[in-house]
């Protein structure tokens, strides 16, 4: 078990794309806090910020691209063609000949992803919230540990969501594009909440309620319930992905 997790960690951290996700995901949020500092100061002075305890936690959102990239490529790297000489050849062949028990393999892969993303989230949250304290400490209360934990959990579950979807699609481009667009350009899930309250239970929307208090959420959901709902989404998608992975020919 330990050796399999070690191998999966090496595989993931040996990919240049993984480092793009790690660096982008860790640095974007602190950079935004820094860039927004003058604007934030003015907003605080003018009293237009309703709940300053949300401040750093809200900025964390832009870093989610990191967990999304990591979750997708942990799987998609197995399916990309390894060379032009053999278009059908993929890393998955090496992976499954080394660890043929697919359930054990998925457990190790999932564990490696969770370790990497949780560490990244902890670093990004510390940097973002620390910077917020340094810049606006007089007006912003120190973040509650439970909310920080909620944010780290949100990052980890987001990575697992991306991972599970890619396990189903076996291709990284479509899920990564959709997830990144949904979290940056236009949030389709957010638009859906304007149409139906049910959309408040979509994983990305509900998950944010674990640590963000004041936003125009149409339905208020308690942090614990929010965490459970998002976990349920991830669990169901992971279960579907795992069953397909188990059944399909490699």
């Amino acid at each position, binding site marked *: 078990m330990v050796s399999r997790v070690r191998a999966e960690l090496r595989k993931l951290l040996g990919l240049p794309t993984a480092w793009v996700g790690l660096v982008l995901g860790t640095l974007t949020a602190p950079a935004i806090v820094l860039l927004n500092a003058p604007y934030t100061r003015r907003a605080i002075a003018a009293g237009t910020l309703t709940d300053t305890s949300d401040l750093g936690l809200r900025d964390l959102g832009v870093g989610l691209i990191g967990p999304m990239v990591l979750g997708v490529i942990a799987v998609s790297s197995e399916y990309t063609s390894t060379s032009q*000489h053999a278009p059908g*050849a993929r890393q998955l062949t090496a992976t499954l000949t080394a660890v043929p028990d697919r359930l054990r393999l998925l457990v190790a892969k999932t564990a490696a992803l969770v370790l990497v993303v949780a560490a990244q989230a902890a670093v990004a949250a510390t940097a973002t919230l620390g910077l917020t304290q340094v810049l606006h400490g007089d007006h912003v209360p120190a973040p509650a540990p439970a909310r920080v934990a909620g944010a780290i959990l949100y990052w980890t579950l987001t990575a697992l969501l991306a991972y599970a979807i890619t396990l189903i699609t076996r291709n990284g481009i479509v899920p990564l594009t959709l997830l990144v667009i949904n979290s940056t350009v236009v949030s389709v899930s957010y638009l859906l909440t304007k149409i139906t309250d049910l959309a408040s239970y979509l994983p990305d929307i509900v998950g944010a309620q674990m640590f963000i208090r004041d936003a125009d959420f149409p339905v208020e959901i308690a942090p614990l319930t929010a965490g459970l709902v998002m976990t349920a989404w991830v669990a169901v998608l992971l279960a579907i992905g795992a069953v397909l992975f188990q059944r399909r*020919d490699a």
Partner: protein
Amino acid sequence: MITVDRVSKTRSRTRILHDVTFEARPGRVTGFLGPNGAGKTSTLRILLGLDRPESGAALICGRPYRKLDRPLTTIGALLDGSGAHRARTARAHLRWVAASNGLPDSRADEVLEIVGLTGDARKRAGRFSLGMSRRLGLATALLGDPEVLVLDEPVNGLDPVGIRWMREFLRNSAAQGRTVLLSSHLMSELAEIADDVIVIDKGRIVARGSLAEVTGDHRTLEDAFFALTATEAVRPW
């Protein structure tokens, strides 16, 4: 020891393997011969637990591949390509594979040396030539010093020196008591290294036995092959 017992497989509603049955024994090189599309790769993928048979079983030392613990110490496989992600160096690839089976990092450099890739250890797999990829794939197969070797068209893409090297390597492996199973559509190649031959055509085993038995009354293995697979030479106009 490899045992394939009445393996059948259907793909896109066509039966591509019909009750495929054969053995490969320790200390011998077993050649798996058949024309393009006969079902060689399909059979080997089932043997390696990558694809599932519809019925029948394929066993390595009495156990299905998926039930092997630390399989690389029992069996090494070489399929199409190297199995290394393009962005990884040869050494990084070999190290993660070694780690997954509890083997030390030092094995990576040892197998690179065996296949003659020491100088390319830090090169990314995506930059490898066809022949270098084959060698890296073989290096991966050798990590756990396995007693069984399964190779799909191992000389594909190798230069004459590489082909001779591969031939000697496989002969030596068998001489040391290993089980060696290799597929090929090159009859002259197989005739030079195989002790036993299995001939597959359109998903059915049409002959199996020692090289002499399969060649039978025919002048060469090639003649026997054409007789067995009833492939008609295309008549020039």
